[in-house]
């Protein structure tokens, strides 16, 4: 389980995370929902040790984040973070060179599934193909958790459908997925748990199915209640 406990983050005088706490369980898809500036991306970066927090604690399966984090948790940022001159095949080699958890068989299958050309340079990839490669690099690591920052942002309908299909496949099963979005509509049916953020605070954390059954509300209904109240 990923636990964020009372996290605080300040950029100068601006407080981005205000005593934020939530959990993301293994084998479940947890979605951080909030408008731009709510602190979603900062939170993921903090979990991955890419930005220091001003206070609070992050625990992965009960342990503080440490050296083995990156073989245990994969992060798919909102852009492809590899040099533009690298080829698709080169990026796969790069990952295989550094990560013990790299699964080359799965990478080859996903390359085929996403119809990516190994000889294409990263600089020449369309936004949709860059997002697919980004996802491929994250999914091909045999990690317990997968963090994704806005995986559907700014890409075409068919690419979105292809990426969404990954969430219902065995590539995700058993893993804990934590993703962020500000457009929950088209992935509502995929997520198990929603964490609604607003100005660096958790406004509500709930299991989607429970709310559907007990209160007869969708995630969007709950969002309306929370954000428009």
């Amino acid at each position, binding site marked *: 389980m990923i636990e964020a406990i009372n996290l605080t983050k300040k950029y100068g005088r601006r407080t981005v995370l205000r005593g934020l706490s939530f959990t993301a369980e293994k084998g479940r898809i947890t979605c951080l929902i909030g408008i731009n500036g709510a602190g979603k991306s900062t939170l993921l*970066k903090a979990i*991955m*040790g*890419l*930005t*220091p927090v001003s206070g609070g604690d992050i625990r992965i399966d009960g342990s503080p984040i440490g*050296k*083995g*984090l*990156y*073989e245990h948790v994969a*992060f798919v*940022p909102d*852009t*492809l*973070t*590899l*040099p*533009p001159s690298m080829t698709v095949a080169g990026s796969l080699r*790069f990952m295989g*060179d*550094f*990560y*013990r958890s790299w699964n080359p068989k799965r990478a080859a299958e996903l390359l085929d599934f996403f119809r990516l050309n190994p000889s294409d340079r*990263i*600089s020449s990839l369309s936004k949709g193909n860059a997002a697919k490669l980004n996802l491929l690099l994250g999914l091909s690591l045999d990690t317990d958790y997968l963090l994704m920052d806005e995986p559907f942002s700014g890409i075409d309908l068919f690419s979105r459908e292809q990426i969404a299909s990954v969430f219902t496949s065995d590539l995700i099963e058993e893993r804990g997925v934590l993703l962020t979005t500000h457009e929950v509509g088209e992935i509502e049916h995929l997520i198990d748990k929603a964490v609604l953020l607003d100005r660096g605070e958790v406004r509500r954390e709930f299991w989607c199915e429970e709310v559907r059954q007990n209160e007869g509300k969708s995630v969007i209904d709950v969002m309306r209640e929370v954000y428009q109240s």
Partner: protein
Amino acid sequence: MNRYGKLALIELHRFWKVYAALLAMTLVSQAGGFFYHLRTYMNGVHRQMAERGFRTYQEYREVFRGGETFHSFVSFAEPWFSGPVVLCAAAMIFYVFFIWYRDWLGKNTFIYRLLMLPTERLNLFWAKLTAIMAFVLGLVAFQIVLLPVHLWMFRQIIPPELGISESIFAFVRNHRLFQILIPGTFPGFLVSYGTGLMSVTVVFASVLIERSFRLKGLFGAILYAAACGTAMLAPSFSDRLYPLELFWLRFGIGILLLAVSVALSWLLLKRKITV
């Protein structure tokens, strides 16, 4: 290969096109410029000999000044020699900063991936430091290889009556730029390039201070670099020290600054760096 080695190879690979261009520019400028200068000189000699009816270079030498050294000929073509060296040095100074900043720049910010590699983050520091030192030493080595080529060209074009050949060692000792670039003794080499290594670690630490604390960090970085520079220069202002004492004091301060810069970089990469 371990992860440090792989990272160092990546850093070497990322700069190789610019580096190859720097080597090519040095070769073309020095060899081309020197060749052009030597040919122009010999054309002048032949024209004068034809006008005055001289049959031998000895006759020419008796009337006109001749018997210049290799060093003198290089001095006449100085911009072609020193120009690329200064340009390469400037490029390397720029790259000491850019080797870090390039990872934060652009749409595909590579620093995310580099910081998420399952290895000690200090390996990034070592890999970049290794790349810078390899590039600098490579440029110097290339220059050392080029000098005998220039000397050979000099011997081929300028007849012995008009040009005095000298050893590369003597040439380097007398040239104001090359004597800095290629120290004459091994201890001299260690001091020059050791100071260079220490300076690079200070710049790296300063860049990481800036990358960790951004605007506040910029002031911190400038202060840190200034403090290190002052610490290195301070002993020079003392007139109570013997040269050997001054040397050992500077050596000690240099080692201390190197250690502090590495330790500070390690701490920043581990705890404070932000993407």
